[in-house]
């Protein structure tokens, strides 16, 4: 494999590579190959990129009813999403406090408690310890050596926004509201809307043989649109696009001309109520670092949660939400089908690109590449953010 690795490069060569990625775009080089293909670097990303910020692990719609529990393998750590009796979504480490048994191994609906399948210790839906059967001997359900108040499920700091469930494994990231404040401000027209999901037709997953960052990078920029998505030019041309960069938070692209036809009838989906006129023909596509891709339109919003499975494999979980409940009515079904098909085709058109770039990162003739200062500031903004997080506080980057 080409490129420097975290283990072989030390702080010198690898640090230099990170510094180059964080340099001004005219002088910058992309992240080195190791950041895409080296399993050791993937492990470093888990600790430095994902564990220390707000990372998306699921959609809230996966646990729709009180008592619903969903096990999640988050970068190798077993977590449990749980909707409590009041309807609030909680995230816990999915292990029993007794002997570390995984509590829930498949989606389930808990009626009143979560019961460990090993010794049947039971937890309330708020995570507190409810029962420790026979722990003091047969038929004795307490023991003075065990402080039940200290033995509840271990909570994970979590937040929900746009039906996306985020966690901060470190517990030390800035407040979630601070994390999303820049995007919430930009998208204040969409940020707190009710979203309406159509069910299975609004969900699909792509299994892509690429590093998760390539999916982000490709999503951020419009430069590739006329070559990879020629169909989009019929309603959204390259010259109508603009670049979005919010350093340290998100980046992406927007279009001033979004007006797709989803059938011959000329009918449109209902728009979000009271939406400012600017959105009549505009749309924006933003990557909220690290692993959420979003698309906002006057009539629907989609989310893509990137689930890194390995250095060279990523699952892309797509959820499409509509602006009004009317869009879920039967008369809109052909248009919903068409919208699903449209986005599926667009995202599938990107697969050969990101998989091709993944293969390219095994080449000794490539180690980061360059950016178009005119077209790829969004991608570079993401590289800079990753480089700074990988470098950590002990490495001063070139500003």
């Amino acid at each position, binding site marked *: 494999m080409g490129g420097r690795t975290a283990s072989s490069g030390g702080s010198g060569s690898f640090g230099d590579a990170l510094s180059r990625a964080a340099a001004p775009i005219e002088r910058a080089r992309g992240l080195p190959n190791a950041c895409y293909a080296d399993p050791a670097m993937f492990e470093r990303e888990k600790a430095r990129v994902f564990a220390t910020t707000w990372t998306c692990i699921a959609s809230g719609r996966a646990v729709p009813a009180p008592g619903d529990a969903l096990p999640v393998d988050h970068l190798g750590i077993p977590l449990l999403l749980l909707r409590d009796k009041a309807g609030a979504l909680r995230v816990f480490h999915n292990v029993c406090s007794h002997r570390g048994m995984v509590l829930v191994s498949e989606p389930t609906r808990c009626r009143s408690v979560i019961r460990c399948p090993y010794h049947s210790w039971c937890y309330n839906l708020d995570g507190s310890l409810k029962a420790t059967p026979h722990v003091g001997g047969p038929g004795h359900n*307490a023991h003075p050596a065990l402080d039940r108040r200290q033995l509840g499920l271990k909570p994970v700091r979590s937040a929900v926004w746009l039906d996306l469930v985020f966690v901060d494994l470190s517990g030390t990231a800035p407040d979630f509201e601070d994390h999303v404040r820049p995007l919430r401000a930009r998208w204040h027209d969409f940020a707190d809307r009710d979203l309406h999901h159509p069910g299975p037709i609004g969900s699909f997953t792509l299994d892509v043989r690429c590093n998760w960052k390539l999916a982000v990078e490709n999503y951020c920029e419009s430069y590739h649109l006329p070559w990879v998505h020629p169909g989009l030019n019929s309603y959204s041309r390259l010259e109508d696009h603009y670049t979005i960069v919010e350093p340290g938070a998100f980046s992406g692209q927007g279009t001033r001309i979004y007006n797709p036809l989803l059938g011959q009838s000329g009918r449109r989906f209902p728009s979000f109520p009271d939406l400012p006129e600017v959105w009549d023909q505009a749309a924006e596509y933003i990557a909220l670092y690290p692993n959420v891709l979003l698309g906002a339109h006057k009539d629907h919003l989609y989310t893509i949660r990137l689930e890194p499975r390995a250095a060279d494999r990523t699952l892309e979980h797509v959820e499409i939400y509509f602006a009004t409940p009317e869009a879920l009515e039967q008369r809109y079904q052909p248009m919903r089908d068409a919208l699903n098909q449209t986005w599926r085709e667009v995202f599938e058109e990107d697969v050969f690109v990101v998989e091709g770039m993944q293969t390219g990162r095994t080449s000794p003739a490539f180690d980061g590449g360059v950016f178009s200062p005119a077209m790829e500031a969004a991608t570079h903004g993401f590289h800079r953010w990753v480089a700074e997080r990988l470098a950590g506080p002990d490495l001063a980057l070139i500003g």
Partner: protein
Amino acid sequence: MPEAAAPAAERRARLEAGILDAHARGDLAVLARLYAEAGEHEHAAARTDAACFFWTQAWIFALDQGDLTLARDLEDRLGAAGRMPPPA
């Protein structure tokens, strides 16, 4: 076997068979009911330890199944026998 012991032995055998069958089928609601009945059987015979073992089994399956009426009744019985943790 003494004559009076025969019905009790039959009842116990029936409960054991039912419990094994419910375990095999994964029918936790039935397990809660049968274990509670087994606890009553032992309690009537003044075998407190055995009763509390069965009541504990019944309590856990009742909690799992969301049968909170039965669960609370069993908590009361176990509590009266000093087998529950002190209130938080």
